[in-house]
């Protein structure tokens, strides 16, 4: 007994070096998530399809006058993106909770918040980025002025990661709940209000020829804050979910 190795929690260097760095863990998680997205690549088109359908319905409902469409296009596209994000948000952690992968996350020698942040990044790249890529097409459908398009895209590049981070907290909270589709929408609405206001504000200002940098800066500031805080809240919510 006496000759047995050192007590392992006593930060013996051999064990410390055996732990993979946080960067390697993030890469492993990213690889896994991209692989999963690739296996179910058919599902990736669903939000795109949804966005195109909704964008195509607006001219039928409001009439095809180009001026009217141009005036509402920015706001409409923003709301479409928010709505198209919702269904995917719901399942962000659901499979990982159900198949026990989250238990493995919890016991890994990595900060849970960092894993959550990586998961959100992978989620954003696979489900939201395609929506932003097709924005020029959707903008053309709704007669969005071409000089507003870059502002819309920048606003979305700031607003959607923010929404994905907030949505991740809610998704973690509802991961262990029975039915969560409408519930997630109900919970996301209050959190989405400021994001939508500032993103739409930037677009409207650009359209009116006014300076649009201020609302974009606010969004950027909020995004920085959310990158720090949301993963912590998300980790706390995941720990509650795993208790079941």
């Amino acid at each position, binding site marked *: 007994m006496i000759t047995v190795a050192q007590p392992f929690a006593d930060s013996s260097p051999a064990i410390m070096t055996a732990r993979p760095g946080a960067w390697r863990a993030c890469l492993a998680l990213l690889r896994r998530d991209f692989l999963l997205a690739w296996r179910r690549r058919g599902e990736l088109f669903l939000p795109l399809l949804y966005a195109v359908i909704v964008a195509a319905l607006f001219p039928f409902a409001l009439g095809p006058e180009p001026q009217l469409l141009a005036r509402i296009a920015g706001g409409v596209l923003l709301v479409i993106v928010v709505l198209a994000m919702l269904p995917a948000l719901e399942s962000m952690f659901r499979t990982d909770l159900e198949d026990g992968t989250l238990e493995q996350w919890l016991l890994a020698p990595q900060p849970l918040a960092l894993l959550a942040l990586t998961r959100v990044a992978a989620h954003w790249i696979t489900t939201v980025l395609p929506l932003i890529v097709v924005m020029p097409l959707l903008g053309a459908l709704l007669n969005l002025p071409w000089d507003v398009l870059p502002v819309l895209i920048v606003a979305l590049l700031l607003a959607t990661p923010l929404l994905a981070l907030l949505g991740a907290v809610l998704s973690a909270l509802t991961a262990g709940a029975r039915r969560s589709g409408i*519930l997630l929408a*109900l919970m996301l609405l209050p*959190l989405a209000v*400021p994001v939508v206001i500032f993103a739409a504000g930037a677009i409207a200002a650009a359209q009116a020829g006014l300076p649009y940098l201020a609302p974009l800066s606010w969004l950027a500031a909020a995004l920085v804050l959310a990158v720090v805080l949301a993963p912590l809240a998300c980790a706390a919510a995941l720990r509650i979910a795993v208790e079941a």
Partner: protein
Amino acid sequence: MSRSYLPHWMHRLGSPPTFYRFAGALRPWLMAAALITAAIGLYGGLVLAPPDYQQGDAYRIIFIHVPSAWMSLFIYACMAVAGLVALVWRVKLAEVIAMECAPIGAAFTLITLVTGSLWGKPMWGTWWTWDARLTSELVLFFLYLGVIGLYHAIDDRRRGARAASLLALVGIVNLPIVHYSVVWWNTLHQGSTVNLFGKSSIAPSMLWPLLVMALATHLYFFASILGRTRTALLSVESGKQWVRGIVDRQPLPRQGAPT
């Protein structure tokens, strides 16, 4: 365990049977005080206070509307504090209190929205305007609904309570952001700016009934939360020795008012 960080009296009051007895003794008095102060406040507001020189008698809805609006925020703060205690120290009583705050708060928020809308029609000519205060109140209503919905969507009540408490805490960060973003939004749109209290301070003859009403709603809230928490404790703790004891001794000899 970490619970030992709590002060001793909190620990003692945190035990469900003690709280049950304490709340049962306090509740009738609080409820009676709430009814009396509400009667005084309403009499002062609806009868004694003079009509407003601009709004006539229509302004009298503030004696309901304004205390409700204060309560909607106050109860949210109570819920968030109880939720924080529930999350950090895992005190069962705090979980129950936080979750019982939500329906009362949602009711006050709904009253605020409805009375505000009724008041808005004669005053501003519209039922609804996207002013910062109104929008924040609406968002607050959705936050309450989210907390209630999340709590009921999770089968394990304690886990549901902690998840919903975390949501309440996220919401409390969100609320001021919503308020100021809507203020910013309104200036961008040059929308209608609504001043609830006008330029001048409120007349003393109108102020005292308002404050009395505010006191009445607070008393009502405390009476209501004690009653609701007692009922919820009986359900959460059903099967426990002390609950069986109460059921066996029914009807309670020491209890004056029905709860």
